[in-house]
């Protein structure tokens, strides 16, 4: 084992003074440390007041999520050596939750949002037996639909990196929406799907910006951003009619018809109101002013579009 020298830049928070500040620690430590072990080293040898949350050290308990070099992750799962950038590792508390002290954040608002989406199975009496002697079977292919999502350890790394919360502090959050997805897909769940979707819609799926940061942060490789798209699909397929579901339908229809999305007519179709019409009229004016010919207002089908359409139909059926 080799010893290496570097600077650990930690964003600390002192609640007595309600003050956040950066503090540098110069360390010379073994190159095999995880970020959590590095923090323990600093606490043991350099500053016993440094406060962080940790427990299992095995990426299971989900206590030690924090922001390391601008990316949220579990301190116990990340090798410190890999995170030294130009001689420095930067460590901060999760960004979308209030710090309690140093790297410890108040998780309660995120847990409150989790409770709101009813994160539990409401047994479907048609599927789940009413006694404990008979097993409630789930087929492997049924479980596969949400197997990955059950790996969530509620560490809040995704939540701490979420851009939608940056824009709307009331946003329900990535892991909360993944939880909705998990129960929507569970064959044993008896709650009405539309009720589940409603829970996901309140400051939820429509506010997601699809930035992919939740997926980048998750120590278990769960892509909440993709689960959110699936929830939007379910909302559409269970008959919901709103600007987003109209957009999704029109998007597919025009790509199928021409190969490209018709952005000229999209606002009018999706918004389905006077404002949408106004946007279309303004676009038409702008295009004319810029000398764009009318046939270029909307995409034209490319050559042999029928072959493309056959391809899409086959993909839907066979892939």
């Amino acid at each position: 084992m080799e010893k290496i020298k570097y600077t650990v830049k930690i964003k600390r928070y002192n609640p007595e003074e309600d003050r956040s500040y950066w503090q540098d620690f110069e360390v010379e430590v073994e190159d095999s440390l995880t970020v959590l072990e590095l923090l323990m080293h600093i606490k043991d040898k350099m500053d016993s007041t440094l406060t962080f949350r940790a427990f299992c050290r095995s990426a299971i308990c989900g206590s030690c999520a924090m922001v390391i070099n601008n990316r949220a992750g579990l301190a116990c799962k990340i090798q410190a050596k890999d995170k030294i950038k130009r001689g420095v590792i930067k460590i901060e508390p999760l960004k979308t939750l209030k710090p309690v002290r140093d790297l410890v954040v108040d998780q309660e608002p995120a847990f409150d949002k989790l409770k709101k989406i009813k994160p539990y199975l409401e047994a479907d009496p048609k599927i789940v037996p009413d006694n404990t002697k008979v097993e409630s079977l789930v087929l492997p292919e049924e479980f596969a639909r949400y197997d990955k999502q059950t790996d969530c350890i509620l560490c809040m790394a995704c939540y701490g990196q979420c851009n939608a919360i940056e824009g709307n502090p009331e946003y329900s959050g990535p892991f909360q929406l993944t939880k909705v997805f998990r129960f929507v897909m569970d064959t044993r769940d008896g709650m009405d799907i539309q009720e589940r979707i409603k829970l996901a819609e309140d400051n939820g799926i429509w506010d997601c910006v699809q930035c992919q940061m939740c997926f980048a942060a998750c120590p278990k490789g769960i892509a909440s951003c993709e689960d959110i798209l699936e929830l939007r699909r379910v909302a559409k397929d269970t008959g919901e009619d709103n600007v987003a579901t109209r957009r999704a339908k029109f998007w597919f229809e025009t790509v199928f018809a021409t190969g490209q999305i018709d952005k000229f007519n999209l606002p009018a179709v999706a918004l389905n109101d006077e404002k949408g019409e106004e946007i279309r009229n303004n676009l038409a004016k702008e295009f004319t002013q810029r000398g764009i010919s009318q046939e270029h207002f909307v995409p034209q089908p490319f050559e042999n579009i029928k072959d493309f359409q056959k391809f899409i139909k086959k993909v839907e059926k066979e892939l």
Partner: protein
Amino acid sequence: MKKIGIYPGCCFQGADEHNYDIIVAFLDNMGLGNVLLDRAACCGGGVIDETNKKIVYGLNARNIALAEKEGVDLYTPCNTCYMIIAKTKLALDSDPELKDAVNKILADEGLEYKGEAKIYHTLNLIRDFVGLDEYKKRIKRQISGVKIAPYYGCHVLAPNEVAVDDPEDPTILREILEPLGVEIIEGYQNETTCCGYHAGFTSPGQKERLAIKPLEGAKEAGADIVATPCPLCHKAMDGYEEPILQVTQLINVACGMTPEETHIHINKTEVKLSL
């Protein structure tokens, strides 16, 4: 002459038609020939998933296969197209069964996804396809006296598996902007906050609240202009107090074009460049 395949996404269409001129001129300025992949289709835009996720794999396997048929790599300036196509490539290259299944269907159109074509975005195109040394040689004049705040946008840095640079410490945008003679302003407030483009329809208020944040951060840090490689970030963030341009527009100007020739005058928020 080295050639690259231009992937036509929705950022070249209708009100955004000028983006096509911008990148064709950019490729020309880089000394690259191009082939327009004119039978390529929409990448899915993160919306076709709401119909059926499998279609997204199909569409992009086909898009890449079209480039491979032409014997070229695929280039898109759009962060989102890049991310979705690169994600599909990753899925196909790591799952032989999926690849075989897609190829069976592609065969009807005489296409095959081989996995040979690389996926380029403006940032890695300059670094890996053109080369930074060659890029610097092609800069003819300096855009001096202007402070530029680089803004990457999300989809060139996340997910990590398709990021074009180290997502924790990206430097590529600075390396591309510096040779233009501009002053770089980094580390500003909300530098990595999403532009909100993809919430434009589903939650317009959300888009508005997000789009302005990086602009305000850049302005506060003293930047005159924000520069993004992504046409969607540009579209989402143009029209506020702080102006934003595409990196390729600045490069075109530094390669000798007038601001009008590379459509800088179309910006909703006026931009003044001293040359």
